[in-house]
């Protein structure tokens, strides 16, 4: 399991836009770097990120080998009421990590 930092504002009001900030530990090996033995290091990157709120996708992103290690992804969203936010990172070599957080409207 990769380490993940997720930042959700403490105060969220219904209908108001707020930012979710995420940081995940991942080497993002581009697939273009030489290894020590004359070959090329195999590509190992996160290829997609999705955020769903109450089962509905609210944000999606496709990542490329040009993205630096430990990708920092931030996006804004708006909710009418409290619910569950599911964040999912998928990538090469079967990488699949999900984090679930509660969004609580105050």
């Amino acid at each position, binding site marked *: 399991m990769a*380490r993940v*930092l997720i*930042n959700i504002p403490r105060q969220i009001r219904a209908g108001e836009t707020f930012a979710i*900030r995420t*940081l*995940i*530990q991942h*080497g*993002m090996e581009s697939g273009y770097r030489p290894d020590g033995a004359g070959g090329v290091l195999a590509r190992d990157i996160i290829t997609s990120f999705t955020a769903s709120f109450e089962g509905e996708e609210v944000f999606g992103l496709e990542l490329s080998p040009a993205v*630096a*290690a*430990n990708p*920092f992804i931030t996006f804004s969203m708006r909710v009418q009421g409290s619910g569950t936010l599911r964040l999912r990172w998928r990538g090469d070599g079967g990488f699949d990590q999900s984090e679930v957080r509660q969004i609580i409207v105050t």
Partner: protein
Amino acid sequence: MRHVLALLLALQCLTAALAQERRSGFDDMARETQAMQREDAANPAMLWVDEGAAIWSRPAGAQGLSCANCHGAAEASMAGIAARYPAWDEGRFTAIDLAGRIAQCREQRQHAPALARESEGLLALAAFIGLQSRAMPLAPPADGRLQATRAWGEALYRQRRGQLDLSCAQCHDDNAGRRLAGSTIPQAHPTAYPLYRLEWQGLGSLQRRLRGCMSGVRAEPFAYGAAEMIAIEAWLAQRAAGMAVETPGVRP
């Protein structure tokens, strides 16, 4: 005694005068990079801090002791600790740096497998412990036994080395603030280590940075944990005494 006091006073005045001109590498960074360090949610080094906090309370070794079993909550017991290193090691009668102390504690007290220099675990613990001193002034111990180490460190700092025949001081004292290719030459104050360097795409120690500089001037770098490395660290800490700890920092 009076001579010593006068000397101390003179030193203090000198440090105070220097303190006004000293700049952390942070001050010369791009705004975007500064923003990464300023905000924990955007600072990738916090991923390692998180890992360090986990290791702190994870039992290791034959007796199943964790760091927390002896030291308790790091927030209390480790506040200001990282700001004092390198310090004097009573057991080995030599100077020791924070990474060395962590590895020593792990081996001799936890009886756990040693953490290698620059390993992810050791960097994570050093970053976690360093964070507990954030915003505190660097406070090298007044221990007189460290004087020889610092003097040696200063000599190494001023010694020309490598095929380019450059000393640390020629860049970081004489030409600090000017540019070397595209980047500003910093004054080389070790206030933010271990730090996340964008070029490394990961966390690294001061010794990694020093080794990078040494191979940059085409000198043979000292090994990780070498006495020379710790001497240079001790001198740099003395040189930066009083500056605020920024651990875990971000640098370009």
